[in-house]
């Protein structure tokens, strides 16, 4: 008895040992030479006791119409699937993972890599399962010698021109080609000619190309990146150039990839041809610890995975969430992480009489802050939460300042008199995935491409799929889909509201019209008038119905929705002018020009950004990658971040700092744990505790009192000047600085 036999006996479950003979030896059996004979043999052999299988990756079958169900057989299993499924999808439902390269569920079917070949009974040739619709009664066989031989042949072709680069390739360890050649490939190739080499392309500061790895077969077989760029990202820059062995992927004219989603081609590339430039040669994927968390660089709350090694964030990858970001993330989300390592505040600091900061310990810093705070009059105390603040710390800040007697707490970017009473007035009522049902969009003062790239991708998807009309009011911009630029300001809005504008008929004729108002308008003086005009349009255009709420606000910052839910609203609109004590909790973009010179400013945050220059005391806090916090995204979905790496230096979590300060100031807050704060939040905004659930607004805008004010006719401005630099993390990032220097230059 050889060792292999012993091992196979040891590993095999006992229940099979009596039914079949499992002795394996290396012999050439006749069925290996002739596929037909073996498939016949396999068909008979597969009949008895089949262990149950579960669908790949939790694939679910949804029958839109029960009559459309058809029955197919995958490896002998009978299976009910809806009409229109491809053979590959049927196999996935049956629990068979078909190898594939060119097929991607979110891109158009190319059917050109041939890796997904399966055998179908009565079909003379193997069938490319990704492009073949399943037909009733089809008998699909995925593990016959014919299918295996076909895959092995395809694999050999794929590897023909592929360099033996794995040890120096960044994709090594997470490479589809590597895995599949292990699983399905031969142990040797027969290609003895020269491998070709291709000059690498410069696609900008984010995506690195190693064109040799995308050698011949991959180029024209996999072109996933070309399809992604064209279909999802909406930049038609990449193409397949040349032909035959000279074919390559390129831009023909020297051009950088100017898409805000370009990073996704890295994930999408099944080989190592497109890799991340900032991550190049930094780490191997098996050294990394993944933490599933939430992105805070915009209000979408994309689901991400932070890959860290030790105390360092090494990269950020998207996580699948069909309702929010599908499986894409924007470049800002993906590449901002080097900002987490630069310009960090790591010690409490106090500004001395000479105007220089001096590092002190927490005890002294908190003592100084508490002392100054107690001297200030309650109405002179102001607290401002930053755009990256989590709900817990905002709750603590509000509670603390309320205990001090002040009610001047707000979150930056929500404007002077935000409307926090009606939840439908500040969230995206349609929900992000609901946008796909729309057939007419009116964008008012918002440029989703830079404000929320994932929402823009959704709109683009809808425009491509439903030929939805898009009207846009605001400064001229480049949205990467067909749109009508209706006008630049409230004048056009008024025309639509009065029905004078041709686009009004488009809205009123649409089945599911959607109006998206940008949160940049919150800062305008006449925002109430604008909103009531928009509501008038919504009312006339039948945008809000019992089964459809198409009136949306697209927020800008991760903290905004939670801040408004928690009621962070300033008592008076000009509290800054009279403030003596300002508590900035990560607020960098507040206009402190009007602040009196003798005011005392405390900056609590993680980056030495705009906010610290006016600060008297700096309290270092942890960034979103280092703390547990609750965030609500623009559609009202609550999500939580998890700490991926430890805090730097002597920094503390935001809510802990406020809790400690409250004790030092003698106004002790009644919670000691994050659970304690959450039960406090439950009394204010219970929806913030329903994690990963979208809580729709219950009341429509009809309850709003009538507002009689005139609109100012100045055109709308753009809310985001530089897509790549919007907050303290992205402003500290070198990659983002490179991007804005290279990609945004006109």
């Amino acid at each position, binding site marked *: 008895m050889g060792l292999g036999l012993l091992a196979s006996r040891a590993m095999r479950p006992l229940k099979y040992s009596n039914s079949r003979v499992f002795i394996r030896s290396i012999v050439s059996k006749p069925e290996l030479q002739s596929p037909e004979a073996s498939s016949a043999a396999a068909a008979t052999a597969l009949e008895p006791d089949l262990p149950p299988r579960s669908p790949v990756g939790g694939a679910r079958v949804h029958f839109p119409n029960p009559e459309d169900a058809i029955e197919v057989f995958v490896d002998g299993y009978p299976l009910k699937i809806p009409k229109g499924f491809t053979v590959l999808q049927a196999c996935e439902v049956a629990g068979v993972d078909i190898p594939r390269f060119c097929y991607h569920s979110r891109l158009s079917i190319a059917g050109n890599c041939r890796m997904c070949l399966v055998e179908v009974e009565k079909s003379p040739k193997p069938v490319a399962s990704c492009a073949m619709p399943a037909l009733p009664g089809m008998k699909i066989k995925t593990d016959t010698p014919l299918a295996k031989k076909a895959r092995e042949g395809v694999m050999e072709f794929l590897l023909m021109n592929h360099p033996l680069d794995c040890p120096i390739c960044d994709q090594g360890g997470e490479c589809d080609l590597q895995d599949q050649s292990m699983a399905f490939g031969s142990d040797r190739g027969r290609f003895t000619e020269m491998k070709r080499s291709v000059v690498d392309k410069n696609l900008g500061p984010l995506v690195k190309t190693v064109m040799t790895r995308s050698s011949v077969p991959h180029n024209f077989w996999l072109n996933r990146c070309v399809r992604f760029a064209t279909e999802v990202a909406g930049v038609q820059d990449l193409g397949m150039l040349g032909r035959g062995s000279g074919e390559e992927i390129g831009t023909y004219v020297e051009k950088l990839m100017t898409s805000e989603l370009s990073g996704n081609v890295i994930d999408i590339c099944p080989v190592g041809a497109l890799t991340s430039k900032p991550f190049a040669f930094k780490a191997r994927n098996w050294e990394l610890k993944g933490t599933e968390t939430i992105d805070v660089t915009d209000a979408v709350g994309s689901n991400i995975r932070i890959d860290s090694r030790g*105390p*360092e964030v090494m990269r950020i990858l998207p996580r699948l969430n069909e309702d929010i970001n599908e499986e894409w993330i924007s470049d800002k989300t993906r590449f901002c992480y080097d900002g*987490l390592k630069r310009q*960090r505040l790591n*010690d409490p600091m106090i500004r001395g009489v000479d105007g*220089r900061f001096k590092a002190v310990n927490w005890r002294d810093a908190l003592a100084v802050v508490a002392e100054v705070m107690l001297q200030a009059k309650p109405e002179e105390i102001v607290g401002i939460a930053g755009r990256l603040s989590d709900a817990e710390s905002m709750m603590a800040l509000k509670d603390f300042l309320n205990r001090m007697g002040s009610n001047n707490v707000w979150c930056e970017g929500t404007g002077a008199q935000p409307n926090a009473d009606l939840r439908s007035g500040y969230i995206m009522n349609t929900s992000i995935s609901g946008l796909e049902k729309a057939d007419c969009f009116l964008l008012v003062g918002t440029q989703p491409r830079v404000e929320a790239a994932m929402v823009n991708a959704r709109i683009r998807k809808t425009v491509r799929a439903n030929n939805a009309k898009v009207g846009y009011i605001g400064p001229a911009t480049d949205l990467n889909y067909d749109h009508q630029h209706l006008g630049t300001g409230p004048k056009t809005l008024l025309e639509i509201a009065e029905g004078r504008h041709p686009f009004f008929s488009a809205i009123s004729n649409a089945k599911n019209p959607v109006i998206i108002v940008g949160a940049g308008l919150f800062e305008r003086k006449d925002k109430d008038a604008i909103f009531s005009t928009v509501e008038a349009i919504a009312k006339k255009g039948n945008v809000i119905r019992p089964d459809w709420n198409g009136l949306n606000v697209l927020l800008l910052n991760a903290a905004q929705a939670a801040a408004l839910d928690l009621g962070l609203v300033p008592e008076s609109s000009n509290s800054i002018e009279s403030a003596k004590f300002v508590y900035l909790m990560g607020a960098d973009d507040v206009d402190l020009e009007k602040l009196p010179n003798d005011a005392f400013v405390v900056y609590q945050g993680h*980056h*030495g950004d705009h906010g610290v220059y006016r600060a008297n005391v700096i309290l270092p806090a942890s960034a979103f990658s280092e703390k547990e916090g609750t965030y609500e995204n623009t559609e009202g979905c609550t999500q939580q971040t998890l700490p991926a790496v430890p805090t730097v230096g002597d920094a503390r979590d935001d809510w802990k700092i406020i809790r400690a300060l409250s004790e030092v100031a003698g106004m002790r807050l009644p919670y000691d744990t994050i659970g304690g704060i959450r039960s406090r939040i439950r009394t204010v905004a219970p929806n913030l505790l329903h994690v990963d659930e979208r809580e729709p607004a219950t009341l429509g805008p009809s309850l709003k009192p009538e507002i009689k004010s005139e609109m100012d006719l100045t055109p709308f401005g753009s809310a985001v000047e530089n897509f790549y630099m919007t907050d303290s993390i992205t402003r500290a990032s070198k990659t983002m600085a490179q991007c804005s220097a290279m990609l945004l230059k006109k």
Partner: protein
Amino acid sequence: MAMKSALKSIRERGLGSFLRELKEEGFLRALLDGNLMQTKLHNRGATLVGVDKFGNKYYQKLDEQFGRHRWVEYAEKSRYNASQVPPEWHGWLHCMTDHTGDELLMLKPKRYGLEHRENLSGEGEEFIYHSKGHFLNPEQRDWSRYQPWEPSKKE
């Protein structure tokens, strides 16, 4: 025979240069170093196949027992070791190929790669490799993974 040729060269070039040559060629050292002495004795009647860029001499004598028919006399007489043989001669010396090092140099396109260096480990502190972060490795001392904000920078 050897005596005769020695006397002949003394006659031709003078005693001084003869002695200097004896010293440079390592004959004096060979008196103490059995290895070197054996090589020197071996060299008699062998063909000098080539000399590499370091001055190592490669000999061959096909009458010898197989396996002893190719050898090297190191240029360094006092501190020699096998890593002084450059890669192009390695193959010839170990009977992997019949191309001598000079031929291989002609054949091989020299596009990149480092100059051959002998293995110096054990020859002193400076040749010992200390991994990154070892306290004898002076290179990287700061291991903090983030860069703190410095207040003096901006004002």
